[in-house]
C-alpha cells in the first residue's frame, strides 16, 4: 500500500511543470530589496546626488569604499552644495553587499541594485570607479559638471522634513 502512495507522489510530480530555471538563459524576477551591485544616483536635473561625505565609507564594514572629495563651483557643478565626490570607488571583491552604505547615505545617492553577475579576471577590474557606478543621465538632460545659475544650489542635503 505504502509503495503505491510513494509512486503516486512520484508520478504526480513527473507530470508537473519543472521548477528548474535555466539560468542564465532564464532569470527569475528579483525581490524588491535584493542587494546587488551599487549605483550612484542623480537628481532629475542631472546633478549627482553624492556629496562626497564618505559616510558610506565610514559605515562600510568591509572597508570597500574609497571617497575623495573636492569643491563645487557654479561654473563646474557636480552636485548641489559645496562638496562633491572627486573620486568614488567600490572594491566589489571586498563588498559583502550588506547595504550599510545605502543606509548611511544622507542623500540616498548610493543604492544597491539588482545586478549580481560580477566576475573579474583581474583584481584591478573589481574596483568600480565613479564612472562605472554613476547612472547615465536621462535623455536630454545634461551630465556633470554643469554650469549653473549662481546661488541656486547652495545646500548639499535636500530639504529636511518637519518633525511630525
Amino acid at each position, binding site marked *: 500500500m505504502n509503495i503505491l502512495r510513494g509512486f503516486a507522489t512520484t508520478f504526480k510530480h513527473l507530470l508537473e511543470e519543472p521548477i528548474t530555471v535555466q539560468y542564465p538563459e532564464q532569470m527569475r524576477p528579483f525581490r524588491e530589496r535584493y542587494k546587488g551591485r551599487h549605483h550612484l544616483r542623480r537628481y532629475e536635473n542631472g546633478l549627482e546626488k553624492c*556629496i*562626497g*561625505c*564618505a*559616510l558610506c*565609507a*565610514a559605515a562600510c564594514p568591509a572597508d570597500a569604499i*574609497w571617497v*575623495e*572629495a*573636492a*569643491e563645487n563651483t557654479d561654473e563646474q557643478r557636480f552636485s548641489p*552644495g*559645496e*562638496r562633491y565626490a572627486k*573620486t568614488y570607488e567600490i572594491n566589489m571583491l571586498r563588498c559583502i553587499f550588506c547595504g550599510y552604505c545605502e543606509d548611511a547615505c*544622507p542623500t540616498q545617492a548610493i543604492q544597491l541594485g539588482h545586478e549580481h553577475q560580477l566576475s573579474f579576471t583581474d583584481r584591478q577590474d573589481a574596483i568600480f570607479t565613479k564612472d562605472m557606478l554613476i547612472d547615465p543621465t536621462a535623455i536630454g538632460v545634461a551630465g556633470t559638471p554643469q554650469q549653473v545659475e549662481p546661488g541656486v544650489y*547652495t*545646500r*548639499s*542635503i535636500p*530639504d*529636511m*522634513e*518637519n*518633525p511630525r
Partner: protein
Amino acid sequence: MVTAMTKLVKVIIDDREYDFPAGMNLVDAAKQVDVTIPVFCYHPKMKPVGMCRMCLVEVGNIQKDRATGEVLLDDSGNPQIRWMPKLQTACTMNVSDGLVLRSTSKAVDEARRNVVEFLLTSHPLDCPICDKGGECPLQNQTMEYGPGESRMNFEDKKHLDKHVPLGDLIFLDEERCIQCGRCVRFQAEVAGDDVLAFHERGRDLQIITVSDPGFDTYFSGNTTDICPVGALTTTDFRFGARPWEMNSVPTLCNHCPVGCNTSASTRLDRDFGGKTMIKRIMARQNEQVNEIWMCDKGRFGHHFTRSEDRLLQPMVRAAGGSLSRETWADAVAAAAKLLGDANGSVAVIAGPSATNEDLFTLKQLAAGVGSTRLGAWPPTHAGADLVAKVGVGKGTNLSNLGKGDAVLVIATDLEEEAPIWRLRVKTAHDRGAYVVVANARKTRMDDFADAVTMYQTGHAATAFADLRKQHPEVAERLINANNLVVFAGAEGLTLDGSRALMQACANFLIETNHVGRANNGLVGVFPGANAMGQHYLGFSPEATRDIIANPPKVLILAQADVVADDPAAAAWLSKVETVISLSLFDDEATRQAKVVLPVQSFAERDGSYTNGERRVQRFYTAQGPIGEAIPAWQAVARIAEKLGQGKARLSAAQVMNDIVAAIPAFAGCKYSDLAKVEAQFPQVGGDDLYYGGTSYKNTGGLGVQIASAADNGEAVALGDVKADAVKGDLIVVPTVRLYNRERVFQASEAQLMAARVAAPYVEINAEDAARLAIHDGDMVQVSAGAAQPVKVRAHVNGAAPKGTVLLPRNLQQTATALTIAAGTVTKV
C-alpha cells in the same frame, strides 16, 4: 600660574571637597578633577565672556557665622549652603573659599538641553559635508546634552550665506557660526591683530573682517582650530578628508627658529600616487614653545614637500657633459671618489633646515677626509656661540613673563622673522611685562612695546652699549627687571656687526645678572629651524665667509639654496672646482653640481631640530617618499661608508645616539627622551574635545632643552664689542618677509597665498625719494654693494628712515643683497 605661594581654597564639587589655588577659573578647576562642565565660548587661553550659556551650573556658598567665622550647620549637622537663586555661568566664576558647585541636576540638564536646542534652531545640520564633522564640540555636546528630537519648523529656519571668504585663507559659513566670539577674541586678545568683528545683531549676527586685504594676520589658521563648530574652514584643507580618516603625525614646523610643534593629518591620496599625504597641519600643544598656536606660514607652508621641482633621482655629471640619472650606488661612488681625491680641500655649507642628524653626519664625513670647514647658511647672523653661553635658562617659558619682567627685542622684525615669538611677547606685554623694541626702523612689534628706541642704521651694538646713557629710564627698567629676555636679530648688520650686537647683549645680561636662570637670557632670532643645531654641531657663518673667500676644491652644499639668497653666489661658486649638492629641489646651484643627491624634506623622514631656545625636538615620518630621495644623513653616511669611514647607521635614532655620545650638549637627547610627554595645563585636545580645538594633544614629545653654559654654572666672561658699520649716502638694508618666494614656500604661494606674497619692492624714505625724484609706485633700480642691480617697485610710505632703503629678500627669483651695503636707487 600656580606657584607655591598661591593660597589654596576649599571648594565642594558634586559633594566632594577639593583644594584649588585661589582665582582659578571654575571650569578649569572642575576639569582638573574630571568633572565636565560643557562650554562653547569659554577658552582657557582667553578671557571669559559668558556668551553661550552652555556652562550653566548650580552654585552656592557655605554659610558662615559673621561674627565668629564658624561654619553654620543645619539640623542634620551638615554645613548650611545658600544656593544662588538662578543658574550661574561657571566660566565667568573663579573658585573661592566655601564655594559649592553642582554640575548635574534637573535644572542644569534642562538648561543645557535648551541651550543646545536653541543653537540648533539656526544650525544647518550639514555635518556630512562639514570639515569639523566628527571632531565637532557641537556634535558631541548635542549627543551628550541635547534634546533627542527637534521641534523646529524647518520653514522658519534662517538661511544665511554659506560661502563667505574672510580672506584668501579662511572661509566662513554664516549658518554654522554659533556666535561664541572665540575667533574675534583670539584675534584681538591673543594675536593682537584686531581684524575680525561682529556685525548686526541677533540671529543676523555675523563675523566680518575689518581689514583690507581680508583677515590680514599671520595667525588666521588658529581661529579654525578654536572655532567650536565648522564655521571657519581653511582654503588649504576644505573637504580634504573626513577627520576620522586621517592619522595625526607629530611633526615640527621647519620655517623659523620658534620650532612650533605641529601635527600633520595624513591620509592616502590617489592624486599623490596612492601614497600617504599631508592633508593639513595643525598646532600641537607645547606650552613652552608654541602653546597651542602656530602661524599661517607653518600651517599652510607644507606644499613644497610635494612641489614639481623636487629632485627625484641621483644625478652625476659626465666629464664636461650634462647631468645624467644614476643609481644611488653609482652616485655615492662618484661623490666618494671626488671627496677622496680632493686631498682634504673639502668644505661643507649646510642650510637652515638641515637636521641635527644631517649636520652631524656631514661633520663626520668632512673630518674623515681631513676637513673642518663647516659653514652655516645663510651667513648673516653671528653669535650662536654666545647664545649657547648665556641663552635663556633651562625651563624658560615666555608665558611666565609678566609684571616686573622685561623683554628687549633688538635688530629684528619679530613679526616677520618669528611670528609665534612675536605673539608670545605680545601676550607677555598684556600680562604686564615691560617690552622694549630697538631697531633702526619701525616694526610691527612697536605696537606692543612700552618703549621704542630708534638707533642709526647699522649701529645696533653701539646704541645698545650706550643705552644707559641715551635712555637711562629704559635701561633702568631692564636692569631692575626680575626676569629679562633679549631677542636679538641681525637686521641691518654685517656679520661682524651682528657679532658685536650679540656680544653687547651678552655683556648686558651678564652685568645685570640675567643669565643662568629660567626666563632670563639671550635668544638669537636666527634664520631657519636649526641655527642652534648648526652651532652645536660645529657649523658657523664665519666659516661660510671663509669658504667663500678661499674656495675649496670640493664643496658640499646641503640644502642651501645659495644662488637664490646671495647675489654673489654665482661668482664664488664658479671658483669651486666641484660641487656636490644634497638638495630637495632642482635649484640653481644644483644645476651646476657634479653630483646631485636628492634628499627628503621633514615630511618624509624622522629627524630633530634644535630651536632658537635650544630645545631639541623630534619629528616623525608623515608623508610618503618622493622619487628616490633619502634623508640627507643617509646619503652622507653612505658616502662615508664608501670612503671606508665605517658602516652607515640604519636609522635617525642611531645617529642621534652617536650625537649624544660625541657632543656633550646633546646629553639626554636620545629619541626616547625627546619623545617624553607630561601633562600640560590647560588640558586641551584629547578625545573629549573639551575646549574644542582639534589636534592639540601632544603625543610626540616635548623635547629637551640644552642647558646653557651659564645654566651649568660655568663662568661667562664679558667680551669686547667691536662695532662695525657700513657708510654711505644711501644704505640698503635687506629685510625678511614671512611670506616670500623661497623655494620652501613657492608651492604654497602658488596654490594659496599668491595674493599675500608681496611683489618685489623697496621702501624709501620720503626725503630721499624727493631728492631722487622717485614717487610711490615708481619702478626703480636698486644696486647694493657688488650685487647685480634689481628692478623693483618703490614704496614711499614712511617705513624707511632717512638714508636707508629697505629691500626685502627672496621676493623674486634673482637674489637681492644678502647683507647691508651702501647702494644707489635710480628711477627707471
